[in-house]
């Protein structure tokens, strides 16, 4: 987290706010609720209280405006800049402005007012931008449900105002996993139309051949309706589908869009009911088979007939010599199978049936 220079903060814990005008995009009551909920996010972890004023000068003056809107800090039309707020201080200090050229919503379509307001009110209380992509104070908009503050945000605001004396229990947003952590393990890896998607905890990395650095995003930001953690995933390029497994459910993506008719139960694939999760999945294009790894065994699913091959499950250790007995994630790339288990990845030749190289898992992320 970062604060503004000289750690600007309010000198009182009783802060006032006033909403000067409303966006026509939402009902007045929805705007009131979004602002109040956003203030409560910060109040829950500090001794701060917020009182609404209906006239006169409040510490935090909230308004919607377009282009040049009176502070010589103009907005830029739709998209781009969404809002800004001033650090605590007299006059314009604490004031929070939203770009009326955006379309404000209370769901995940376009820009969610509550999320943007919670971020901006963080500025109004003295929080500057954080470089932690999992933090609310990261300066790029991303939609997520649930409690919006990360540990980084909570530490930052409490460094200014201290904790809430009533010590309300909050469940901070999870920390984003660090890609170059030597002990990093993966939950799932899949290809997606030439890109590689790596799932870890509540985040995923996107690797594009033309992007030098992986891009990290909350799973919920891209796919709000799928589970927050992913167990396994694979791409079937012939059907242009990516199947994502979480517990006993699976979802299908066409590109980045969820396919209607999902989630379905993993048992629809022919797995027995005793299987409660798939650890890893990989599609072998040459054979048209998808291998599903569960604990120390694996299954073979025929994509063409839509049935599970007979003679399975088989032992991972016996059929993939040199491999560990369990797999966290698997992906088929450049003619090799890449298996991931804990902090190690195994480059496995499917044709010569042996492990060619063993590397750290994080080397897949250019570490």
């Amino acid at each position, binding site marked *: 987290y970062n604060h*503004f*220079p000289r750690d*600007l903060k309010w000198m009182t814990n009783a802060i006032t706010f006033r909403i000067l005008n409303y966006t026509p995009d939402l009902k007045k009551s929805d705007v009131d609720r979004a602002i109040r909920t956003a203030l409560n996010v910060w109040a829950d972890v500090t001794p701060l209280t917020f009182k609404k004023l209906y006239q006169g000068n409040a510490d935090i003056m909230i308004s919607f405006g377009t282009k040049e809107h009176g502070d010589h*800090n103009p*907005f*830029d039309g739709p*998209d*781009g*800049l*969404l*809002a*800004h*707020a*001033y*650090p605590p201080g007299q006059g314009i200090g604490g004031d929070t402005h939203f770009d009326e050229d955006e379309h404000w919503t209370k769901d995940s379509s376009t*820009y969610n007012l509550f999320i*943007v307001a919670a*971020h*901006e009110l963080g*500025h109004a209380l003295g929080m*500057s*931008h954080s*470089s932690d*992509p999992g933090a609310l104070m990261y*300066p*790029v*908009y991303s939609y997520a449900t649930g409690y919006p503050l990360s540990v980084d945000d909570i530490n930052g605001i409490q460094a200014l105002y201290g904790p809430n004396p009533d010590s309300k229990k909050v469940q901070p947003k999870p920390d984003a996993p660090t890609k170059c952590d030597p002990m990093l393990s993966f939950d799932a890896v899949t290809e997606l139309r030439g890109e590689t998607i790596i799932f870890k905890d509540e985040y995923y990395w996107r690797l594009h051949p*033309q*992007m*030098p*650095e992986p*891009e990290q995003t909350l799973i919920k930001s891209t796919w709000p309706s799928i589970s927050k953690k992913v167990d396994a995933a694979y791409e079937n390029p012939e059907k242009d589908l990516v199947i994502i497994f979480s517990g006993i459910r699976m979802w299908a993506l066409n590109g980045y869009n969820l396919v209607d008719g999902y989630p379905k139960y993993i048992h629809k694939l022919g797995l027995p009911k005793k299987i409660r999760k798939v650890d890893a999945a990989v599609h072998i294009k040459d054979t048209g088979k998808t291998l599903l790894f569960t604990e120390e065994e694996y299954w073979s699913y025929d994509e063409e007939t839509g049935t599970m091959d007979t003679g399975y499950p088989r032992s991972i250790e016996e059929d993939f010599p040199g491999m560990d007995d369990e797999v966290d994630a698997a992906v088929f790339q450049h003619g090799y199978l890449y298996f991931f288990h804990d902090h190690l990845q195994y480059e496995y030749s499917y044709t010569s049936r042996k492990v060619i190289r063993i590397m750290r898992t994080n080397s897949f992320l250019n570490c």
Partner: protein
Amino acid sequence: GPLRSDDDDGWFVAEKYLRRLYGLSPGLRGARTSSSEFQTKIKEMQRFFKLKVTGNLDDNTLDLMKEPRCGVPDVAE
């Protein structure tokens, strides 16, 4: 006047972004390649966003500049 190429458009976006959020000084500058202030500001931005710090306006950096974001200046006052 001539239409801007895609490349020019990228520089236009980057210049606007860095002026607004990283205090890039306005006004006429010399050739882009010798623009050390421009590179310094790009590096500052790349460092903050944990991108590969090259000082060059690569696709990754430009994509991030085009993302919707909060307009509070990174340097207060």
